[in-house]
């Protein structure tokens, strides 16, 4: 290890959201003049670690030191003034301002107390040139730039703050190969100048090309820190997977090729997010969607549910063409569709409303009696479904916000089961819920499938995909990279496809 004092040190840092620990008693050290790769599956705790270091969130427990001093950042500005600068995945640029404005948003060059726009433009030109982005004009508006250029501007903005610790969170995900090379060169140059660098990426070859040190996280814990070359790719993948298979999954039935195809999609495309996607789901089948976060899985589910405009390609339900015009038409299809959305708090639930209102919202027309609602019928239907899903509540009139995450997700499921769906689309339904509830969700999905429901199940948890699904479609960059089934369906193949590691590396 380096002789220098650590630039960033975390001692016993934990972060809990609700009852769930996103980080658990983590000790972590990064040194100046080193490129430190941070590895782990989705939800391993990487982004929480970064957010704590950059002052976006604070730790529930533990101590953080920057440059040897104990810090407790209240906001990103304080972290920046301490020299910790983060290039966030979700861009922090201001779309309506020019590139020059964005690059000097915090401490612009002043003349007579006012922003010296000529000096600011010059500074922008220099910063852009330093990362090889001469093609971006300083007066261009950020909203007019393509995503790859925005990412470069974001990096330039971070460099302009003269960081002592630079954090790059998936900062190259949208870049072209040439830009990636330039970013590498810059990072290496910063390293030689003694800047500490934390580098989060899912691309194994990037890690190999850049990192001096790597730390693997899993389930909110630091698993191991090692120097470059000490571990093979295959060993690293093994570390990321771990062997903590604590879940029990319902038994999978034999394949049912005789069942009719419930949902067919042909050549679905939507901008750069969905590219030529075709798939079939049979009745009674659970099909998984895998891959890294943000490879188009969410868009695919939304497209099938009719939420996206301008989707090309066709969808058939039970062999009949289906028009993708919105949730209402999806719910009225010959096999009614249901979508368990990604964010239950903003897309699935009305948090301040009570449990009954939330559950019956999608089925209100069934309880119509005369001009009003048949309260008794509604009440008993809601109670039945609460029983069936074992939702733990004290009072039907309590606000959904008072429930635990797992029970909230069950309320979303209950809402959709009440509509009697024939096709269920799920967007990562077990994120942030407890183990017991997860198990119930798996069993529920299998029960539904046994009754002939077609299930399309996106999960960021690979173990879950393997345990629950009959087949898994792994997405990469907006298209289906590979379909895995039977003995080919295991964590190694999923991770390898998701990371787009080619066969040679697998052999190594």
């Amino acid at each position, binding site marked *: 290890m380096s002789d220098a004092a650590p630039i960033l040190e975390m001692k016993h840092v934990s972060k809990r959201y609700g009852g769930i620990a996103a980080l658990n008693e983590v000790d972590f050290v990064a040194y100046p003049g080193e490129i430190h790769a941070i590895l782990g599956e989705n939800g391993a705790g990487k982004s929480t670690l970064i957010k704590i270091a950059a002052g*976006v969130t604070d730790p529930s427990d533990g101590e953080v030191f920057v440059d040897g001093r104990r810090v407790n950042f209240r*906001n990103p500005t304080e972290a920046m003034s301490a020299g910790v600068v983060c290039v966030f995945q979700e861009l*922090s640029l201001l779309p309506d*301002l020019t590139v020059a404005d964005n690059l000097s*948003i915090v401490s612009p060059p002043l003349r007579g107390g006012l922003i010296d726009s000529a000096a600011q433009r010059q500074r922008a030109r220099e910063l852009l040139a330093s990362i090889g982005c001469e093609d971006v*004009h300083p*007066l261009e508006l950020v909203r007019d730039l393509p995503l790859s250029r925005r990412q470069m501007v974001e990096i330039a903005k971070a460099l302009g703050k003269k960081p002592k610790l630079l954090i790059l969170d998936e900062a190259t995900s949208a870049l072209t190969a040439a830009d990636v090379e330039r970013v590498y060169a810059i990072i290496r140059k910063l390293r030689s100048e003694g800047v500490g660098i934390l580098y989060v990426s899912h691309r194994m070859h990037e890690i190999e090309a850049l990192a001096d040190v790597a730390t693997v996280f899993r389930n909110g814990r630091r698993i191991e820190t090692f120097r470059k070359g000490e571990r093979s790719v295959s060993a690293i993948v093994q570390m990321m997977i771990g062997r903590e298979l604590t879940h029990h999954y319902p038994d999978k039935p034999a394949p049912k090729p005789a069942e009719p195809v419930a949902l067919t999609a042909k050549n679905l495309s939507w901008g750069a997010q969905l590219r030529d996607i075709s798939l079939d789901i049979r009745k009674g089948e659970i099909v998984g969607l895998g891959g890294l976060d943000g490879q188009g899985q969410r868009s695919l589910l939304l497209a099938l549910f009719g939420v*996206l405009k301008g989707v090309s390609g066709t969808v058939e339900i039970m062999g009949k063409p289906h028009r993708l015009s919105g949730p209402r038409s999806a719910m009225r299809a010959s096999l009614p569709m249901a979508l368990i959305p990604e964010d239950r708090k903003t897309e699935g639930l009305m948090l301040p409303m009570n449990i009954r209102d939330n559950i019956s919202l999608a089925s209100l027309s069934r309880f119509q009696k005369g001009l009003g609602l048949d309260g008794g019928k509604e009440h008993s239907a809601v109670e039945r479904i609460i029983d069936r899903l074992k939702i733990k509540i004290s009072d039907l009139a309590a606000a959904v916000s008072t429930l635990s995450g797992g029970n909230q997700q069950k309320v979303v499921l209950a809402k959709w089961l009440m509509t009697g769906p024939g096709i269920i689309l799920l967007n990562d339904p077990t994120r942030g819920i407890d183990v017991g509830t997860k198990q119930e969700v798996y069993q529920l999905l299998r029960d539904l499938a046994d009754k002939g429901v077609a299930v399309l199940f996106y999960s960021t948890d690979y173990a879950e995909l393997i345990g629950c699904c009959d087949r898994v479609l792994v997405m990469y960059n907006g298209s289906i990279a590979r379909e895995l089934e039977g003995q080919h369906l295991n964590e190694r193949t999923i991770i390898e496809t998701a990371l787009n590691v080619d066969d040679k590396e697998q052999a190594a």
Partner: protein
Amino acid sequence: MNDLRHRIHHNGGLLAAIGLFIVMFIIYVSNHPVGLTAAVATTASNKAVLLALVAMAQTLPVLTRGLDLSVGMVFILANCLASVLVVGTIGEGLLGIAIVLGAGALAGFINGAIIVWGRLQPIITTLATGAVYYGIALYLRPGPGGDVQSDIADFATGQLFEVVPTALVVLLAIVLIVWVPYRNSVLGRAAYAVGSNEQAAYMSGVPVQRAKLLAYTLAGLLAAIGGLMLTFNTYSGEASAPIAGTYTLNSIAAVVIGGTSLFGGWGSAIGSIFGAFVLRTIEDLLFVFDLDPLWQPLFQGVVLLAAVSLGALRVLRIRNRLELFA
């Protein structure tokens, strides 16, 4: 050359508003029975500058993605206050002017403080403070009346060198003294940043709260300057709710016509000035073309509604319907 292209692109809305104004003004002047004399120009600009100032005021909260429904009331309050204070000798009059401007800024600051620290919505806040400011105006002037220091008033509404309307010079001075420095200040740019994306602005370390406070305070100040100019025109104060309401509404329309986005982050007070000129010229055109005055309010209402409906173009670009609800 490249710089120029970008500048034109950034100021498309402003240039469109200027172009529209020039075309309309030419039509107006060429159909005017007398033509463009210094007197005609002065009368026109005295009226137009009032709305231009209130529209400048409205621009600032809108840039931060807010709205100030009290600008018209502050305008009227300043009018009534000026009709009480800006009297006597020139010196006393000037002191009165300073107090009126201070009161306007204070009114704006109160709006901003309630929005920033009280964390109430801009609409309900300014609707309620608007009632208070109107009440104060009514207290000062229960009926139309009062007076104003006539030397200052005559100067402000007359001509410089017997050609240039002083009101236009005053407007230009305010642009140079208030708007240009503001636009180039850290907090002025922060207002744009807040309106563009408040979350990203916070993450980037932009002083979000101070930017909002300053925007509302300056809005109060500018509306008060408008109220002063109104007093110089009418030589009296009147606490008229309809006038206040009309100015508030027209200020929003002027802001939109001037190319400022109602969703914040984009636009300029210069655009709003020309937006105000356009609205005023429409009124004058109706006059020279002898449109039945009865039709005028309807015509103006429709122009307004059409102007704000330009914002709907945004919907066409949205491809994920969930973004409609954001």
